[in-house]
């Protein structure tokens, strides 16, 4: 007689898997930390997403804005999310990372740092930006192409 594992993991049994949705949309905030990453995030913001919103903190310490130009309170925005994705580019000034990171830490919000365009950057530039992101990122990704952000957000059901 076949065991439970043998029967239940067969291809035939897959049709009995429950098809009801198993999650609700999560709130994801994608925040550009510098001018170069702002351009990439602006392109993303123009696409349809179910639960992601996009901000720029490139002018920090001036107020953050969304891509319609409206001012946003970084602390409030970050604290209200399920996940905050901070996007930076090598050599950029990612000073807003600490404010965002502290807000996320206080509200127990997951943070991901995304360093884009690292392939062509100098070691110094990568190192400087990484050291700004690292203390505040529970996950850090160093990617060369910026189109990875869209794939990542899709994978996370943003």
């Amino acid at each position, binding site marked *: 007689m076949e065991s439970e*594992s*043998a029967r239940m*993991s067969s291809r035939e049994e897959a049709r009995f898997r429950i098809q009801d949705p198993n999650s609700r949309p999560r709130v994801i905030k994608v925040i550009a930390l510098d001018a170069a990453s702002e351009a990439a995030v602006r392109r993303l913001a123009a696409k349809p997403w179910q639960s992601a919103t996009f901000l720029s903190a490139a002018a920090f310490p001036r107020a953050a804005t969304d891509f319609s130009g409206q001012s946003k309170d970084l602390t409030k925005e970050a604290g209200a999310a399920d996940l905050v994705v901070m996007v930076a580019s090598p050599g950029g000034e990612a000073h807003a990372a600490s404010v965002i990171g502290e807000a996320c830490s206080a509200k127990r919000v997951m943070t991901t740092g995304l360093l884009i365009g690292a392939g062509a950057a100098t070691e110094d530039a990568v190192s400087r930006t990484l050291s700004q992101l690292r203390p505040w990122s529970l996950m850090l990704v160093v990617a*060369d192409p910026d189109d990875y952000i869209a794939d990542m957000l899709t994978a996370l059901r943003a």
Partner: protein
Amino acid sequence: MLKKEHSDLITQTGPGTPMGQLFRRYWMPALLAEELPENDCPPVRIKLLSERLVAFRDTQGRYGLIDEFCAHRGVSLWFGRNEDCGLRCPYHGWKYDVTGQCVDVPSEPEGSAFPNRIKLKNYPLIERGGVLWTYMGLPETQPQPPEWEFATVPRTHTITTKRFQECNWLQALEGGIDSSHVSFLHRSELNTDPLFWNARANQYNFNDLRPVFEVVESPGGLYIGARRNADDGNYYWRITQWVMPNFTMIPPRGDHPLHGHFWVPIDDGNCWAWSYEYHPTRPLTEEELTAVLEGKGIHVKTDANYRPLANKDNDYLIDRAGQKAGKTYSGVHGIAMQDASLQESMGPVVDRTKENLVSTDNGIIMARYRLLIAVKALADKGIAPPGIEAEHQKVRSASIILPPNQPFKEAAKDAFVARPAVAPVSV
């Protein structure tokens, strides 16, 4: 989540599929050399990338990997007689050499040219590091033989095992690059497994149960770093190598051997999990070899067909009492079967449209991203994927302590390169 069409694209590896074309650009482990131990030994049936093949070693020691079925009436040549430099079909005596060329059709007149017109599909089969490797692509794109360090160190320094895994290759690979499961599923093994215990850095694992992950693109694939707090404000890094499409190397511990996997598609619902263990600068000890053969570390005890003794037919010999007593986290014994049992439980090909990935799954997300880019680049523009060049294969994983502000890709770059007679960087 991953769209169904994208999941199909990178899980289906049969002939003519885009991912199948990508796999057919690499040398892949096909058999252990021990499976064809001597000239004229019995042939071996094998399915790779959804193609049924038979392997044999002829009278002169040459290896052949050819279509499993006789061109005459479709009989399996696994029943063939391996004799006088060829594999002879027992039905009507048609005989094939290691290139698949028919060399004798006894029913035809002696000297007939008819056998010249019969040739079975064949692939090269070469021995390297105790493994028989095959290349299933076009002859004009055949790369140099594999340069993975485990396959090029002296035979006394290396041992490789394989096991049958009943799920798609990508499911198994994704387990190999999913660093965040280790703290749960394998937490009981660090101090008890002879291929892991007594490393100084194990203490960092136990002291910091919430590692932070960094995923960085490498020339051949990805570096997946897990960062924990070490002494004096430094970080303890464990950095896994993934080289496209299906090679992984686990970070080392102390002076234990380096180890890792190849995940080779058999068909779209099964794969071979290859597990290597080697040390670049010394022979493996008797204790290490015994541990491997007893199924310790990332290895498994199998039957003669390389199917694990603990498998889904016996519910993986799950030990609920041991689970409750804290001997294992999942109730399944052994690191490899802990992984395999859960990966097989997902079904032959997991439905990725239903998954809810989280941020710490970025290693998996990035790997899929790179695979999709590579498969499309090859299909649309003929661009060769990463991982074929020798430089991409001469790699090592590392465990290393670094100051907090350093990017590990630069700070550990020497550690990532396999250099003959240079010890691995390991804590």
